[in-house]
């Protein structure tokens, strides 16, 4: 009897203990972040909605270069002496950016004073593109065409953004491959030329994807992409950026081909010039365009026009009237030793105006430059025709020349005015080894060739022993 009781007891205990391990009470559901989306969640069978969010996010990160007045295009504008940034709360916008005597040369200053839009933020856009590509690769909820559409878009943005750090770093080179999954293993530094070819390869990949994306783009883009709503349109946008990179790589034939495949229109007129893809600003929950200034705006935080832009301008150039505003009172800055500046930034009519990413006007000038450089058959004539489409659009008479050098000079001159404030002149002058032609007499500073590799990269390489 006693043994039986014991046995029953023992079996009960055993059953009980077993029931614990079988029961839900030892099961643990994996906890996902209840507060925000995580990269884990989008990397695992993402929904079309999640991919949409990533693409919208890419548009947002793509805009970081211009989301503050202290951003990349302002710095490049100062380096190219297109403009000055008067910010009375920090003298570095004058001393470091103009490279006044006493400031460390940008080429040697690994902690050069510039906000994240010159380096970290473009790379955040690149990482988001990489995350998007990973999400697209790991989902079964999208058609192959939709996957191609998303990939093509992400790769185009990634290539566009890699240009920003490359502009700043120039001959230092940049990393072009940074695996999202393993941040401990960023790829090696690629020389300027290698990086350009990496970027072009990414663009070509993106073009192939967009070409395989079918006839409709299954995601919604912001107003900045008005008129670029199908994969075919977006492919033309991709080729426009490819044309820009091709002239950096001095691959003139490819640049001409790319302009042909892009949305370029060789027609005159303001609307033709401004045709293109934009960074949009909406206000409300969105931010406003920081490059909009009221007339005679407060001089404590203001972009002013470099006097050479007015001195060198042709009379009646509508670009001057469109972009520069003569202030009621000239603007001054306590650290700026030059004269008071009469003109301020006036490209935008309202704070919700969009900021161009790439426009037809640039494509026409890219074509002109590439033709002039290739100089085969009727190339020079065609180049001059292209230049004149732009000139006529802004109320200027024809430029006439058949001298290759003169044509190239003219293209660069037109680019100064057509693309003012959009981050080009410093890069153009450097491409043609003409940094010494940028005037520094007004401010007493110097023009740097590039910015030193960021201290964070030096630290990382030191830490990893590379």
């Amino acid at each position, binding site marked *: 009897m006693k043994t039986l009781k014991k046995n029953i007891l023992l079996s009960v205990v055993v059953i009980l203990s077993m029931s614990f391990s079988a029961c839900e009470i030892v099961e643990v559901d994996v906890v996902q972040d209840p507060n925000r989306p995580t990269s884990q969640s989008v990397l695992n069978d993402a929904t079309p909605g999640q991919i949409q969010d*990533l693409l919208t*996010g890419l548009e947002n990160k793509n805009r970081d270069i211009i989301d503050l007045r202290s951003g990349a295009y302002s710095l490049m504008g100062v380096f190219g002496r297109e403009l000055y940034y008067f910010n009375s709360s920090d003298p570095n916008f004058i001393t470091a950016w103009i490279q006044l005597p006493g400031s460390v040369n940008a080429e040697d200053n690994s902690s050069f004073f510039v906000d994240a839009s010159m380096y970290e933020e473009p790379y955040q856009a690149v990482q988001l593109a990489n995350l998007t590509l990973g999400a697209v690769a790991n989902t079964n909820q999208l058609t192959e065409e939709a996957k191609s559409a998303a990939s093509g878009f992400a790769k185009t943005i990634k290539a566009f953004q890699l240009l920003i750090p490359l502009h700043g770093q120039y001959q230092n080179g940049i990393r072009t491959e940074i695996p999202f999954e393993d*941040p401990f293993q960023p790829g090696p530094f690629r020389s300027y030329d290698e990086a350009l070819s990496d970027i072009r390869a990414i663009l070509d990949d993106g073009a192939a994807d967009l070409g395989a994306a079918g006839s409709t783009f299954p995601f919604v883009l912001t107003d900045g992409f008005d008129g670029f709503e199908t994969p075919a349109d977006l492919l033309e946008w991709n080729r426009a950026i490819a044309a820009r990179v091709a002239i950096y790589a001095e691959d003139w034939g490819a640049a001409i081909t790319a302009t042909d495949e892009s949305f370029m229109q060789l027609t005159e007129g303001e609307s033709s010039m401004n045709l293109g893809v934009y960074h949009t*600003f909406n206000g409300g929950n969105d931010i406003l365009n920081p490059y909009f200034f009221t007339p005679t705006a407060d001089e404590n935080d203001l972009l002013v026009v470099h006097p050479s832009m007015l001195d060198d301008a042709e009379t009646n150039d509508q670009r001057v009237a469109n972009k520069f505003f003569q202030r009621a009172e000239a603007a001054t800055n306590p650290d700026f030793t030059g004269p008071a500046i009469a003109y301020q930034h006036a490209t935008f009519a309202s704070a919700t105006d969009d900021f161009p990413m790439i426009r037809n006007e640039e494509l026409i000038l890219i074509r002109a430059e590439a033709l002039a450089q290739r100089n085969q058959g009727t190339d020079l004539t065609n180049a001059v025709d292209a230049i004149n489409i732009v000139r006529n659009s802004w109320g200027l008479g024809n430029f006439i020349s058949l001298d290759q050098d003169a044509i190239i000079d003219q293209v660069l001159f037109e680019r100064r005015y057509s693309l003012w404030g959009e981050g080009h002149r410093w890069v153009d002058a450097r491409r043609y080894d003409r940094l010494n032609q940028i005037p520094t007499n007004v401010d007493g500073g110097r023009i740097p060739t590039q910015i030193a590799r960021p201290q964070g990269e030096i*630290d*990382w390489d030191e830490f990893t022993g590379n």
Partner: protein
Amino acid sequence: MPKKATMFYLWVVLLLVAQSAVAQFTAEGTVTDAQTGDPLVGANIYHQDSNRGTTTNVDGAFVIELPGQSATLRITYIGYITQSIEVSAEQSTDLQIELTSDIANLEEVVVTGLASSVKRSNLANAVSSISAKDISEKVAPPTIDRAMQGKIPGVEIMSTGGAPGGGFNVQLRGVSTLGAGSSQPLYIVDGVYIDNSAIRTGRSVVSGATSAALTDEDDAGVQDGVANRLADLNPEDIQSIEILKGPSAAAIYGQRANAGVIIINTKQGAAGETQVSFSQEVGFNSPLKLLGRTNWTEERIIAFHDDADEGLNAATQLELDRFRTAQENGTIRDLEEVFFDNRGVINKTQISISGGDAKTRFFVSGNIDNEDGIITNTGFNRNSLRANLSHSISDRVSITSNTNFVNTESNRGFTGNQNNTGGSLTYNLASHPNYAYGLLQPDQLGGYPDSPYFAENPFRLVDVATNDQDVNRLLQSVILKADLATFGASKLSLDAQGGFDFIDANSIVHFPEFMQFQRSQSFPGIVVHGENRSLNTNLQAFLVLNTDIKSGIGNINLTSQAGWTRFTTDIAASEIQGTGLLPGQTNTDNAAQISTNQNFANTTEVGFAAQQEANWEDRIIATIGARFDRSTLNLDQEEYTLYPKASLAINWANFDFWNINDVNLFKLRAAYGETGGVPLFGNTFTTLGTGPIGDRVGAIAPVASVDSDLKPERAKEIELGLDLGLFDGRISFEGTYYNKTVEDLILDLEPSPSTGLTTGITTNAAELENVGWEFGLSASPILSQNLSWNTNVLWWTNKSEITELVIPGQTNQALGFIGFGATRIEEGVSPTAIFGLPNTEEDQFGGLTKWGDFQPDFQMSWNNEFSYSNFAFNFLFHWSKGGENLDLYQLLLDGGGNTDDYFREGSTEVTPRPGPFSTTEYYIQDASYIKLREASLYYTVPTATLQEFFGGLVKRVRFGVSGTDLLMFTDFRGYDPEVNFEGRNTLIRSVSIAPYPSSKKLLFSIDLDF
């Protein structure tokens, strides 16, 4: 398997074990104190073989029915050494049992496993414990953490300020994390892991001190100055607190135990007559220290305000006019005295009813605590109701239920840091000269004028601004114990526990629209409503097998246990902020702008544990154990991590060869254990941000990432000790050395900037070491019937050092300016060392100078208890020596010229000081102090007198007076060297920025037992 089925099996077990016996006899007797001869009320008489027990009545008498013809009874009483006596049917009446008091607490039972405990004399660890007597009976503390101060070696406690209701940072044995995990010990109340978070109110957002996000779980970065939720527990309900200070003792709690474990048990009823206890305390808070302020004169005003000798400037003239007006009107007041030198009334009422019979026991208590702060409109109220019930279903099965409902309300006002808003009284006063008093008084309509000296009139701030937090909390635990079976000398039992802790906290912080700074805002008036709901649940089931093995060398007792635990947390927090409020309205429906903020967190943890203990005749006691834990807080949510432990204690005095009669205890002990530290919730997620563009919002790439090999932090501790007991415990000594290392410390590595990860990669990056000594010496020099004196000295020290760092060094600044002080994470450096300016020849880490260390060189306390006839007198001194801290308040006071010694005595000459912006010397302070933590005097009315007046109605009457922090001796120039502006920062431990001044308390009490 459904839960119903589990219950069914459980009942089967219970039914099977029910038994009955046949032959019986009755034993009767009394239990008395061997020293005084007084009867001991409520002593336990227990017969193990039949599992029967009873307790003594008010006369110390007991009666118990026993089976068979003879039996061994075990007589236990808290605070006395246990005795076993043989009784038989023949010798069973008028048993006279005398118990000797356990001065060295050798009999005290200490937790060593999740379902087992041992006598202190057999313990292999230095586990400190505090009994009810020292928690609340001598000096009633407002909160439980406060009750530990100076009573536990190895602990360092900082507070967020002097506001009633506390707000404490409890650090056991040095540094346990560098910030990625919880730095606070795990608190377990009756088996339930309680929520001890510091629930923010949003005060620092409204006052502008910080703009920390709601997600800040551990209050490390928030300057809200709130109480930690241990404040909800009524100290008078606590029976005992055990402190497992390091991994060697706490390993069985696995991944939650890196910062130590504090086990709190509440009072239980005892069989016997129903006892009704009533206690009433009345007293007051008053400032512990006042700093004093500048006595302004016309000469001093000119010296302070005028910067040139070209005659008086307009500002100076204005100040002179104000000063003269104030002189004429007699409205020069010491503003510090006006605001801080107040008496905050304290009122505590406690009723408890306890009793029961052999089957059912109960302890029911109700408590109302009201404590006003020294600042007007601040205070802390706690209303607590508790019902602890236990019932023996049969001889073998008992069930206990502990239920506690608490409502706590804190009105904390505004002190501490602020930014532009004027939203801190203490900060505010630094800018106001004493002659501003008249300017700040309300006009005839009751409206306050704006302050010309700061962003707010301090009188208006105190009067109209609100910072209240209201907490409703329910704590419930159920404990089931069952003897399942007996096999010869073996006994198998089940120990199952479960429970929950539910908190609903609501807060409101409000600046009305007519306040000075608010009126300058685009949307005047701001209110923040906060709600935090949290639910913790615990489940635990253990099987325990107890076996006696008789062998040639004696008896070996083996206790084996194995079991399972599960712990979950679920938190939902939200904040609604409204600005642009309609007059008099705090509902955000009346706000022009509304913003909200939500945070959710949930965690599930499962663990398995097994432990084997062996005890050879109380001579050699050995334990080994292991715990496997998994947590959804870890990066790998499914992986089980192993936390082992082992310990050995050798009681030399229990061996036959021991012949030193005066040495009753000579114990050498060694223990080793490992514990874990889980990351805070959210730290292992790579969270996408949000980025609006156009009319859409997108997801953007994370700016932080997590090392894919991330492991939980792990602490390893070896502890060695020697315990001595001499002259029957009249003198006892406990000495402990420990070496606690913490490995795999989680830090953020700054990666290549091209990763875009500007916040960093969370990775295991460092290792640190804490080495410490803890000594305790207790003695009872006098022990006679009329007079007794117990004295107790504790001494402890800890040194911390980072022993390995695999990423570049990091600097943690206290505030935005390095000169205000910082700590440095660097190999070979103490993580609590204070660095700062200037750049000297002996620069360290890019221009920093080491100025001190937040951790003291040593701490020491001295406790004394005297009893003479019916009087009891007690005092406790606490000495902390050699630590440094940072005082930033003087910078503010100097800025207004209002520091007590701003001008040299009787002159207009400014006292020269170093810095303040070139050297940290200006801020660094010696934080050493001696405090009279507690002192009390009680008179118990003699029993005979009570008989005469009340008959048998009133059993005990005690009158007393007690005080907390009555004296402080320190060179620290601020209000209190033990405060920190940032609640529970484990590294930046003590920085004083305009805190709520600390107070001392005096309480008068009467206790009645019926």
